[in-house]
């Protein structure tokens, strides 16, 4: 494409994207821009306004003020609710990230969330324990049970060479159906068709707190999630285990020759990943919500893959991307009622981001190739 190389904006874009120091942010931004543009095309095809749609989404997520609010709420209510929703997303995406670092694809986060959330619900959520005991216990149980599931998948991969994507999906459905069975036979609320609500002491979100004259939900989960991001960052970049995980992820055989125990590292990485999934489940089912819908795997576990890829699989990058993906997810319902585009558009834009992020390697390859072309062209020009 000679026109691209010669044109001014082309060179400008190439210069911007070609700077490798900034590619960690410029390539994800390119993915987001492409996804937003493609999404706009879809919205236009449906005869609606993309601008109104995106503004509606931002308003619904508490990022922009709405025209009017229900009594006792304002933008802070929406924003705190956004933070409440972001906590499980960030934790789940961190889980995906840790597995990715070990070269594994944990698509079983939904199942790990459900298992952790379910066990914490029945063991602690329905007990009479006080908040100071109950809340840490919820995290402990959910994290441990998630780690168990993750470790099992890692073991199947290492021991029996079973593709972890296939086994995670099988485990997801097995867990979903079994838990559905137990909820329907033991814990169902006949009116809501969901599990009975948990006691407030076990909830990780303080519901309906009066703050500045309005009622808001205060999520503890977001603090936990941000702390987890720092811990994972430290673990991956500063510890021996992190180094081993990255080595196994980059080149399994090579790591083996270097004396790194491949099996143990893979299982450990999957346990950490699953544990983060379990914690995500705690903040989701015992924080953002207070009950479980039987037989349903949360979309969040899948959107977390988009979040992780968009965040370049870096724990700190994932903080930024989980803000964006949560906005899309959280703002959709309000936007739908206001603009009339069905709320499923959020999922479409999220998966488009995922699609373009998956092409990130290709973008890098293209940019590097184009730069080579430009360089050789410059050399020719100077030679004349």
């Amino acid at each position, binding site marked *: 494409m000679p026109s691209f190389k010669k044109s001014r904006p082309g060179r400008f874009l190439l210069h911007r994207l070609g700077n490798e120091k900034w590619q960690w942010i410029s390539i994800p931004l390119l993915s987001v821009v492409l996804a937003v543009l493609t999404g706009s095309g879809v919205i236009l095809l449906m005869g609606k306004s993309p601008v109104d749609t995106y503004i509606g989404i931002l308003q619904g997520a508490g990022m922009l003020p709405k025209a009017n609010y229900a009594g006792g709420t304002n933008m802070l209510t929406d924003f705190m609710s956004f933070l409440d929703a972001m906590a499980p997303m960030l934790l789940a995406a961190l889980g995906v990230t840790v597995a990715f670092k070990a070269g594994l694809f944990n698509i079983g986060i939904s199942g790990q969330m459900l298992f952790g959330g379910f066990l914490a619900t029945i063991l602690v959520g329905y007990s009479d324990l006080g908040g100071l005991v109950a809340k840490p216990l919820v995290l402990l149980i959910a994290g441990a049970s998630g780690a168990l599931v993750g470790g099992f998948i890692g073991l199947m991969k290492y021991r*029996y060479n079973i593709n972890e994507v*296939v086994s995670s*999906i099988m485990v*997801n459905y097995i867990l979903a159906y079994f838990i559905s*069975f137990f909820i329907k036979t033991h814990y169902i609320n006949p009116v809501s068709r969901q599990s009975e609500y948990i006691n407030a002491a076990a909830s990780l979100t303080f519901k309906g707190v009066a703050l500045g004259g309005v009622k808001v939900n205060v999520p503890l989960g977001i603090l936990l999630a941000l702390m987890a991001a720092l811990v994972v960052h430290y673990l991956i970049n500063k510890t021996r285990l992190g180094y081993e995980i990255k080595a196994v992820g980059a080149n399994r055989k090579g790591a083996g020759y270097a004396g790194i125990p491949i099996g143990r590292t893979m299982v450990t990485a999957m346990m950490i990943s699953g544990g983060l999934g379990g914690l995500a489940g705690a903040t989701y089912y015992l924080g953002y919500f207070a009950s479980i819908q039987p037989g349903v795997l949360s979309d969040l576990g899948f959107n977390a893959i988009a979040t992780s890829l968009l965040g370049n699989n870096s724990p700190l990058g994932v903080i930024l991307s989980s803000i964006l993906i949560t906005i899309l997810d959280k703002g959709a319902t309000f936007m739908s009622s206001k603009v009339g585009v069905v709320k499923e558009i959020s999922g479409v834009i999220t998966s488009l981001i995922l699609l373009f992020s998956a092409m990130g390697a290709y973008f890098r390859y293209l940019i590097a190739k184009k730069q080579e072309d430009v360089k050789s062209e410059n050399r020719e020009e100077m030679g004349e």
Partner: protein
Amino acid sequence: MIEIILYDGLAFALPLLIIAIGGIFSERSGIINLALEGLLGFGAFTGAFMVVMADHFLPGSQPYGIYIGMAFAMVGGGLFAMIHGLLTVYYRANQVISGVVINILSMSLTAFLTRQLNAIIFNAASNRFQLGVADRFTLPLLSEIPVLGAVFTKVYPFQVVILLVALLAYLVFEKTPFGIHLKASGDNPHAVEAAGVDVKRVRFAAVMISGALAGLGGISFAYSISANFNPMIYMGYGYLAIAALIFGNWQIGNTLLAVLFFGFARSAGYELAKALEMSSTFNDIIMTLPYMLTLLILIFFSKQNAAPRALGEIYDKGKR
């Protein structure tokens, strides 16, 4: 009871077979295809949408609905598979990631389009396309045979189509130059290139075929399981098909045995529950059967199988 197990088992096994054959086409050409789940879903969506459209705008098309559905499911699945083909064959994306991306894209896109198209075209707030009931037919004489007659009892029209397409796919795979090139591309792409065949084009075509076959399986599930298209089509059956083809060692014949095993185990589970007079709450437990079996089968068969040698590698002409 044996009869019910046989014909219900077949109604589940055959769609799974055609999806698995799709997977074999892609994987034997060297492209990992975890996208089967998304491809069967998007195919089923396209087919179901065309059935509903035909029903709405072409009154009298009703009896042919299932054939319209099958034809367009193959078209839709094949076209959607082009994304996987572009990403993996031409854009050097990781094949596992690309597959999962396609699945998530398919789920969200069909959920969005079903709701939005229902609202725009039919003025209905619904997340499903209602399909007509596919009439099951029973062959008069053959079905009288004891036990085996069940094979010819309560047959869905799609089962016949699937058998024909599967036979055709088998012939293409085993007897044509394209089939030979395809298999060679998965084992030794450089030799294929040296023989003057475009490896990338062969792989791209294989991925598209896998999409078309998965689409056919998807619309069949939509007809047999729920008689409509809705988000419940994503039940992990694409992944079951992958397990079946691993179990079948990437051979069409062995994979047939694997899906029959899945199908009969599933229908036998339901019949067992009925015979023991268990309440319907136990359906949840029975539903886990295919997934549990898959895990067990994978545990026993994953170690010794022989995957295509170049499976999952990005093909680069310069690299040797």
